[in-house]
């Protein structure tokens, strides 16, 4: 159901971009604030950006969205590219051109995640020593014999990998059967655990490492704020940067958990095994992650909202398309007269239609809108419903108990004014294209479309990739040699670069782990075994090469 709505909305927005580009542009010029709001409003509804089932699905798809929708891509570039070379070529060039930017947009978070892990490993000794073990690794490598350690590691990684495979397949089955609620519940639960329990452990060890005393109420207050903000920004909505920050933090935390609880050889074995699994899962015709990607493309949904770091807001913009559609339908059915009305009467009719729209658009808000039958407020909520901006509807919701929420009456009045003004603006721009005026809400779609086209070339990287990159670098740094850490870091970045290059060439979802992890493992072992003694010799004698 979701998929269907999404598809229709996105195609409609595409048409809007072609047909009424002018009005869209004009609107954009007129109302910059709204753009920003929409951007901030990212991640509404079903677009839960979750993370942490990361636990279960370790790998995953780097996917240029450009690959999936070439037609929209070329449409977006249409301004400049149409002249000389054939469209295919320009498209590819542009893909590459933006590719370089997006490589950096991935480099930065990946580096940050690794930096966080490495800094933690080096400052908090708790995470670099293993004394407790995960349930999945029954063999603890306590024997001094390398052969015993070897088969222990092999057995552990096999067990862990089978758990991962089973979980992945379970996830795919749930996704295929459209059991979104179960998946979301699962993801919310795991991110809840990470954001509260593991963050608490982290905080505790951090304070212990730096010998900082802190009382429980302060710690609880901090944990509560941090965790709730995280849950909100990951699963519901929040500023993009905040969400990205939380995703990076959660990935780093998960990596630390792996580093802490996996025995040493097992960690390396798991890294190798998981990159092979990634290769299989993404590239073989019946690989589960490939099925996942293809199903998501089929349904025209966000790949899988869960385990993915996205460098831009594109899919969340599509998410805001979704809301207006959903809220629009009840409104239209309840007041069919508005569909033919002129722009001057629009306001009142909308206000008539508002209760239904309000109820339809957000169940949480319905009570308040009804108990405060204020004209402006109705308009307000209707506009919000129409434009699909839950952020603002949230505020109007708060206004029901404005004092309690700390908003002054003046502020809310101002809000009403602002909203009313905006509504008028929407209508005035809309009056230009009459055939579209029957559906007030879709006007917002062309408005969003240009932004869309620009942001569309986002590259997505599974959080699992973040985790295992960080595990590799963190494990390397736990031996206390910085050259090994740097070598791993550079190798992983180069591997990521190559993966993205292949992505630009092949234009399909690729596993991001194999190349990077292979490079990383090679450089890690080679550096710690061969390069390190050489460099130590050199720097002890102050010889520079």
């Amino acid at each position, binding site marked *: 159901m979701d998929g269907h709505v999404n598809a229709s909305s996105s195609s409609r927005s595409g048409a809007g971009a072609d047909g009424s580009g002018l009005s869209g542009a004009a609107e954009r010029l007129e109302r910059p604030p709204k753009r920003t709001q929409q951007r901030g409003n990212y991640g509404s509804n079903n677009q839960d950006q979750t993370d942490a089932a990361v636990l279960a699905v370790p790998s995953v798809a780097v996917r240029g969205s450009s690959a999936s929708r070439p037609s929209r891509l070329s449409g977006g570039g249409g301004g400049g590219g149409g002249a000389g070379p054939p469209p295919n070529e320009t498209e590819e060039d542009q893909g590459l051109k933006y590719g370089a930017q997006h490589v950096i947009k991935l480099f930065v978070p990946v580096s940050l995640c690794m930096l966080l892990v490495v800094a933690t490993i080096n400052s908090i000794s708790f995470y670099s020593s293993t004394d407790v073990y995960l349930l999945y690794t029954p063999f603890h490598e306590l024997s001094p014999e390398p052969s015993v350690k070897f088969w222990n590691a092999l057995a552990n990684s096999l067990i862990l990998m089978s758990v991962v495979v089973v979980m992945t397949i379970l996830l795919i089955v749930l996704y295929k059967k459209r059991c979104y609620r179960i998946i979301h519940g699962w993801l919310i639960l795991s991110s809840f655990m990470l954001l509260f329990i593991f963050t608490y452990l982290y905080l505790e060890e951090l304070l212990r490492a730096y010998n900082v005393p802190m009382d429980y109420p302060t710690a609880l207050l901090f944990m509560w704020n941090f965790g709730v903000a995280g849950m909100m920004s990951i699963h519901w909505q929040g500023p993009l940067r905040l969400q990205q920050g939380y995703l990076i933090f959660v990935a780093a935390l998960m990596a630390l958990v792996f580093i802490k609880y996996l025995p040493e050889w097992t960690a390396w074995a798991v890294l190798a095994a998981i990159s092979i699994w990634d290769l299989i899962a993404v590239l073989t015709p019946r690989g589960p992650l490939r099925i996942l990607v293809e199903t998501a493309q089929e349904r025209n949904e966000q790949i899988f909202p869960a385990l993915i770091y996205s460098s831009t807001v594109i899919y969340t913009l599509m998410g805001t398309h979704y809301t207006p559609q959903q809220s629009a339908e009840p409104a239209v059915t309840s007041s069919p007269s508005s569909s033919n009305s002129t722009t001057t009467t629009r306001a009142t009719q909308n206000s008539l239609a508002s209760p239904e729209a309000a109820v339809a658009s957000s169940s949480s808000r319905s009570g308040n809108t009804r108990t405060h039958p204020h004209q402006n407020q109705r308009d307000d909520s209707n506009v919000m419903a129409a434009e699909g901006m839950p952020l603002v509807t949230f505020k109007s919701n708060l206004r029901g108990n404005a004092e309690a929420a700390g908003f002054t009456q003046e502020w809310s009045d101002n809000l009403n004014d602002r909203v009313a003004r905006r509504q008028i603006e929407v209508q005035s721009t809309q009056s230009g294209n009459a055939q579209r005026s029957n559906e007030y809400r879709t006007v917002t779609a062309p408005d969003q479309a240009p932004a869309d086209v620009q942001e569309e070339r986002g590259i997505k990287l599974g959080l699992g990739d973040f985790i295992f990159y960080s595990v590799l670098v963190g494990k390397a740094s736990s031996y206390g040699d910085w050259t090994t850490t*740097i070598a791993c870091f550079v190798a992983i970045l180069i591997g990521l670069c190559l993966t993205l290059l292949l992505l630009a060439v092949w234009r399909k979802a690729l596993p991001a782990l194999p190349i990077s992890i292979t490079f990383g493992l090679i450089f890690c072992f080679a550096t710690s075994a061969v390069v390190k003694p050489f460099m130590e010799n050199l720097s002890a004698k102050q010889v520079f090469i």
Partner: protein
Amino acid sequence: MTLPEFFGCTFIAFGPPFALFVFTIANDPVRIIILIAAAFFWLLSLLLSSLLWFAMIPLRDVLAFGVFFSVVFQECFRYIIYRILRSTEQGLQAVAEDTRVTDNKHILSYVSGLGFGIISGMFALVNVLADMSGPGTMGLQSGTELFFVTSAAQALSIILLHTFWSVIFFNACDTNNYLHIAYVVGSHLFVSLLTLLNASELYTATLLTNYIITILTGLLAFRVAGGTSRSFKKFVTCQ
């Protein structure tokens, strides 16, 4: 004393390269990627030379041998990265938003040289820096307290030299100027072998010579990149 020393030495060695990175590289994604690629190639060369050093068990204590081959490998990889950059130039033209990268060939050589330099400086210094931050320090019981400062200064000169060398080397390969190529390889060998004297704490000799060579190489690189005394004057007086 340990922590201030740590920060001081870090800033001596990596302050100028960091400034170069921030002001000339960080704004352009293509340059960042080339920088990292160059660092990767330097790592490969180091890996090869360490493998050789590791394999030659009887010669492990003779550092001059390892240094010599390491320099040779580094220059080979500089040539390889030159070939790669030149062969992907057209691709770069398509990718780069900032056309200066391809219009001015010296930018590519500068970026890759800086990549070489930064990674080599890091590898040389990073473990020393880690030791520097405490709890112990040099010069209390044995050794000299100048150890850290001189290491940092040497690392800075090596980082700058790598940058200059790449600019000269790439241009020399473009113009078949074998004299310049010989100069690059020769001065690299000379500088690296000269630092062998550091073991006997002849810091004045090594550091002074190294910095003289650094300045000379910098001047040569400036000339090669098309600078003249007049353009330098114009630059200084902001005309």
